[in-house]
């Protein structure tokens, strides 16, 4: 008798747990994040995650979406490997009530994901990956939305910066990846459209190279007066260290894509960073308006959630800022859509208007014809302060 009673109680408890979990699941709107968490030196993944989580924290504290449903983040580690990214995206697509997925820094991963998200109809929110074709993917309707830098904008900013530095002959050091090829293509176009600047040489490298000095020297020997660097933090820091070890007169200005800010670049370069004329393209700096209410609010949430005490402690700040704004735009889109239906949400993203974000005020971040929330005007060159903070370089 006792045994029968205990079995009945167990069954009832199990049913209660299942129902409770089901109810809880139905009350949550999930946001996916597939980023390179396993990448050893990347900090952009954490920055994106923190930006999303800060935004979710704000949204959930404000009542959530769809009349009270909480937003929740599900993260996947793609280790910067496209195949894992594709699988992660598929796995996330299987999650009930998951409305959209954020991607990480690595263009190849995102490019491989593009066909998948369109196949399954899952909105992709890109806060970092900069390849033009992520957005210009040819799919209609387009499920990819970016609030971030675009390679062609970055190249233009970098080239202009080189010109401003008096370098009319530049060499290009770029990875032998789709990201590198995209930038190379953009640089070629820019050079073709701007004959005052010449690309003297292009050096390709693989991820994980042990040295880049030979390629750097090849660029210098080609007559380059500045180096257009397309790199992430690993290869960028390697080049900086190697260039810093050269005599000062052999150190060419290095104008870098923002990939290097996807890691703790100051820590990776050490004192070498200050020995090199190094600049990096950015779209946002907390130090432009550090005392603004938005920044303070974000910092306070970041302090609460992640124990970040100062703005300079925010690594890869553009990732955080972009993800933050994108999450808020997504939340608005969900509400506009009135459900977690992915297609409806995708369509709603194009209808979000008048969002006063961290980076800027978005009259309409995305439209049917434009899936770039930022514009070339938002792009600027920055540099690392001695304390590691990334600050805007103001043109004289």
């Amino acid at each position, binding site marked *: 008798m006792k045994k029968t009673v205990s079995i009945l109680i167990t069954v009832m408890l199990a049913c209660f747990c299942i129902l409770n979990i089901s109810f809880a699941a139905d009350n949550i709107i999930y946001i996916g994040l597939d980023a*390179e968490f*396993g*990448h*050893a*030196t*990347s900090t952009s993944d954490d920055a994106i995650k923190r930006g999303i989580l800060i935004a979710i924290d704000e949204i959930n504290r404000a009542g959530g979406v769809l009349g009270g449903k909480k937003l929740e983040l599900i993260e996947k580690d793609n*280790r*910067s*490997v*496209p*195949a*894992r990214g594709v*699988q992660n995206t598929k796995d996330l697509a299987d999650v009930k009530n998951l409305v959209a997925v954020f991607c990480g820094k*690595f*263009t*190849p*991963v995102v*490019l*491989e994901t593009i066909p998948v998200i369109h196949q399954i109809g899952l909105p992709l929110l890109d806060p970092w990956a900069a390849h033009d074709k992520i957005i210009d993917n040819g799919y209609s309707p387009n499920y990819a939305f970016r609030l971030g830098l675009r390679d062609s904008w970055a190249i233009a900013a970098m080239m202009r910066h080189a010109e401003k530095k008096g370098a009319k002959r530049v060499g290009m050091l770029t*990875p*032998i*990846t*789709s990201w590198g*090829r995209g930038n190379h293509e953009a640089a070629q176009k820019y050079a073709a459209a701007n004959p005052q600047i010449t690309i003297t040489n292009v050096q390709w490298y*693989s*991820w*994980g*190279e042990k040295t880049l000095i030979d390629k750097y020297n090849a660029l210098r020997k080609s007559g380059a007066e500045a180096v257009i660097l397309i790199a992430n933090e*690993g290869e960028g820091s390697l080049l900086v260290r190697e260039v810093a070890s050269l005599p000062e007169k052999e150190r060419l200005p290095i104008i870098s894509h923002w990939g290097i800010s996807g890691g703790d670049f100051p820590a990776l370069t050490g004192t070498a960073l200050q020995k090199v004329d190094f600049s990096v393209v950015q779209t946002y700096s907390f130090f432009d308006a550090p005392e603004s209410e938005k920044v303070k609010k974000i910092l306070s949430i970041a302090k609460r959630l992640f124990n970040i005490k100062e703005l300079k402690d925010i690594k890869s700040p553009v990732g955080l800022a972009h993800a933050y704004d994108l999450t808020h735009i997504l939340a608005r889109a969900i509400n506009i859509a009135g459900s977690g239906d992915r297609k409806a949400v995708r369509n709603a993203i194009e209808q979000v208007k008048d969002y006063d974000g961290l980076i800027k005020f978005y009259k309409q971040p995305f439209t049917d014809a434009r899936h770039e929330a930022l514009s070339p005007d938002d792009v600027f060159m920055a540099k690392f302060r001695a304390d590691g903070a990334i600050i805007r370089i103001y043109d004289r």
Partner: protein
Amino acid sequence: MTDKQNIKTSSGYFGRLFGASISTRIAFASVCIVMLIALLIGSVSHIFIRSYIMERSAVAMEHNAAFARQRLEYSLNAIIHDVSSMSGNLILSNALVDSQGRDIYILPFLKGYKMPEGITFALTLCDFQGMPIASGTKDNPPPYKKPEMLKQTLSKGLPYTEITGDPPNPNLLIAYPVFYGATNKPEGIIVMEICLKDIFDRMASTIGGDTRRSIRITSGDALIWTNGAEKEKNSVMIAKMPNLKEPLKGLNLRIELAERHAIPLRNLYVSFIVIGILTLALTIILSRAIAVRLTKRLVDLSEIADRITESGLPDRTVKVEGSDEIGKLASALNRMLEKLKASHDDLERLVGERTSALKERENFLRTIIETEPECVKLLNPDCALLTMNSAGLSMIEADSLEQVKGKSILPLVAPDYVEAFKRHVEDVFHGRHVTLEFEIIGLKGTRRRLDMHAVPLCNSSNEIIALLGITRDITHRKKTEEKLKDYIQEIERFNRLAVGREERMIELKKEINELLQSMGKEEKYKIAEGGKEV
């Protein structure tokens, strides 16, 4: 005696088998001897050659096994080295984290890898799920999703090998994790699939892996390849491959070599048979030729002997050639011929002398017989007359010998004596000496009483060939004897009368002596023992 009989039997057998040709026998003997020697030498050679072949085979197999092992170890280790090195190449890890457009460098890189000519392989870069990213050899490479492989390479970060496919077309699958520096973890695998048959075929071709040699390659207990030659149970040489690098070592590859001794030995046997046949033929030809050459002088000697047999002493001597046994035999024959000629001359002379003496003796005997007053005759067992002297012819009143020669004389015997005569003749032909008195009636009717003494006449072989009878005409004597008999009877009768009177006289004298004795007087007559008076 027994040995002689055996020799005769053997000689007869060989004589029947090969005729009387001594050259054939010599040839046959030579062939037998040569073949016996060849058999002995061949057997010994066979033992040594077989031993040598086996030893050489074992050495060769050991060498080949070591060579094959080294070659396979080298080939497989080189492949492992290549794949291992390749897995560390940044191009691969770069391709793993790259996306669209990576074919422009990864395909040339993968296609740039070359294997030795003739070795089929597939080289594929796969993602973390074993899905192909790029292949240097296949347009549509298959996925490599084996859980063990993925676990070994991606979870443990260790290389993986496996034998796939079944004999005779096994493949070696080598998978190496491709580490990505940024994650310090394997993010993909480089998979090489090699057609082991190509490698094994090349290895086999370098060690003579045709059907003479059985080559088997096993992985653990599983046979993964064989050159198709039938497995030899004997002389199996097993070569493990201790120098294989990891992870090949885990495959526990072994080479089993087995020499097929049957072929070299069969060749050896064929050689022996061919050489044996050639030797036999050559031996027959040579021995026959040599034997004929050797026996030619014997034939000459034989011909001379034949001529001696047929026509007496030859008119020439044997030509003596060489100092060998036949030469000595020819010399001896010449000496024998000389001696024989001398003996022949002596014999001729002696025969002449004897013949002359015999003639004289014959004349003498003939004269005696012819002049003999008594009949001398020869009869055969049928009582036919063979010969008879003149006295005999007179007795039977024949005019000549031809008149009665060959005819039975029984018609001449008086009928009362025919049976006795025939019985006596038979007795003679049984070797007895007989005497017979009988009567004959001459051809001209004269009756005579004859006394015949007959004895057997033997030839040189002591065989009775005739009855020799000497017959005396006792007609007159018989008459005389009858008269004499009458006279003797008369005398005997007179004697008996005289002896009776004498005996009476002795008795009288005995009576007188007894009377005298009885009278006490001395005896008057001295009478000796037997009654005679002294």
